[in-house]
């Protein structure tokens, strides 16, 4: 075997696999055409490869069937858990955006709580806005997601009663509606009562609204998630409301019967406010918002929010607010 043969044989394996560059392959072609010994070597290698293939084919052929018990064990809430995960990811990233720049400890608390929630195999996603609250969960009976809404999409009437086939218990939401930045929580029922029918508090409900927060997260972090475009596809729902004060807000709550993590985004005349709450539901608790941050003008998060809001609303008015704030050099708290 001469030097040329040695070189060729080192490459026969890749040649066999058609993994050589065209020029290399041509060189080998030429050599093989003239060298019977190397052709034999190639034939032997090919035979070995075919033998190996047949052994692996046997292995695959005789692979045990997949056991499916783990799948059925998870059937109670499989897709919802993933939904919740997606929602939590979006939420987490959003919160990170806020607190990485302003309140690291608060963010850690939120993150830890969200992890705890998810580790507890969250079975329900509660998504609430100032006028509506929505629960999504997996319905074993029908094998589909079931959902219900309290409070009509148009805000005309709380839809509290459900028919007998409904699997739901009451929405475990303890909500707060803040108007004009007034401090203190309010109970959702009274908030609903006071808000329903208010002309200046329209509620947008559906995919467009959902896009708002998703875009907020997507635009900045590339998170993919799902929308509220159909009852089976709800993962994150943002229900913005617009009060007399000019606030627009979106509530974003992830939780189960025991605990929750939530955030409220409020686009107010003086900036984008983010309020975060984590904790356990108690029979008479208030949705006490904890740490708060205001995104400063010029911050990347605010830029993202602006773009997202423009896409969502198609309106420039909110942008004008923010831009004027920027022009004023507004820089947060």
């Amino acid at each position, binding site marked *: 075997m001469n030097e040329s043969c040695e070189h060729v044989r080192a490459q026969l394996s890749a040649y066999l696999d058609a993994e050589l560059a065209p020029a290399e392959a041509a060189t080998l072609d030429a050599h093989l055409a003239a060298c019977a010994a190397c052709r034999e070597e190639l034939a032997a290698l090919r035979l070995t490869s075919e*033998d190996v293939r047949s052994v692996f084919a046997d292995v695959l052929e005789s692979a045990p069937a997949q056991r499916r018990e783990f799948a059925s064990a998870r059937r109670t809430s499989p897709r919802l858990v993933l939904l919740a995960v997606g929602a939590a990811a979006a939420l987490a990233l959003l919160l990170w955006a806020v607190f990485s720049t302003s309140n690291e400890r608060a963010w850690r608390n939120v993150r830890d709580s969200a992890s705890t929630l998810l580790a507890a195999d969250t079975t329900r996603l509660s998504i609430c806005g100032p006028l509506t609250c929505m629960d999504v969960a997996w319905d074993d009976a029908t094998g589909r997601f079931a959902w219900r809404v309290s409070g009509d999409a148009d805000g005309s009437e709380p839809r509290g009663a459900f028919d007998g086939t409904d699997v739901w218990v009451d929405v475990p939401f303890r909500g707060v509606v803040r108007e004009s930045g007034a401090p203190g929580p309010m109970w959702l029922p009274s908030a609903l009562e006071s808000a329903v029918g208010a002309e200046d508090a329209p509620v947008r409900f559906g995919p467009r609204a959902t896009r708002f927060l998703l875009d907020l997260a997507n635009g900045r972090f590339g998170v993919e998630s799902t929308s509220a475009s159909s009852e089976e596809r709800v993962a994150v729902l943002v229900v913005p409301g617009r009060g007399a004060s000019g606030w627009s807000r979106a509530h974003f709550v992830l939780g189960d019967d025991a605990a929750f993590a939530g955030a409220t985004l409020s686009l107010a005349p003086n900036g984008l406010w983010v309020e975060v709450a984590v904790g356990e539901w108690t029979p008479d608790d208030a949705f006490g918002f904890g740490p708060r941050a205001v995104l400063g003008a010029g911050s990347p998060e605010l830029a993202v929010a602006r773009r997202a809001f423009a896409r969502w609303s198609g309106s420039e008015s909110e942008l004008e607010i923010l831009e004027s704030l920027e022009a004023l050099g507004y820089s947060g708290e």
Partner: protein
Amino acid sequence: MSPPRDDMEAAAPHWREAFGLAWAFVGDRARAEELTQEAFVRLGSMRRAPDRGQPIAPLLFAIVRNLALDELRRRRHESLDDDAHEQDSRAARVEADPASSNPAHLADRAERRERVRAALARLSPTSRAVLYLRDGLDYSYRQIAETLEKSEDVVRVTLHRARARVRAWTENLEPRGEST
């Protein structure tokens, strides 16, 4: 937008391929099945945002690979602790067929296959995995490199050596151990 995927469901068509990879690494059918099962469970419990359009197989294979490598590390550790025959344990782990120790009638394809099987058992787990992805699943070098987190050059050399060894052991040309 599409609903989030149930990763385990999406990965189900890849069960056999994943099992094959686990087998290639650990060489033990029962353990390979357990590892594959575990990989699916882990996949299902991963907390990640659903990503549309992303193939699930690479993630599944990466989990299988990591579980298998953990397993192999554990074994090595245990066998050192036990002062066991570490050199032989690798081959012993793979289901060697008694027929493979027969003198060869290499013209007989079935028997030759058994010898190949025994030869594969002597390869290092990583070499076997590379061969499996190439000859079992027809992966390109690049795909193999990505799946096993090796460079394409390493894949190329590993394949070359692994085939040479399998051939040598199959034909009793050059029986010698493989360094890992």
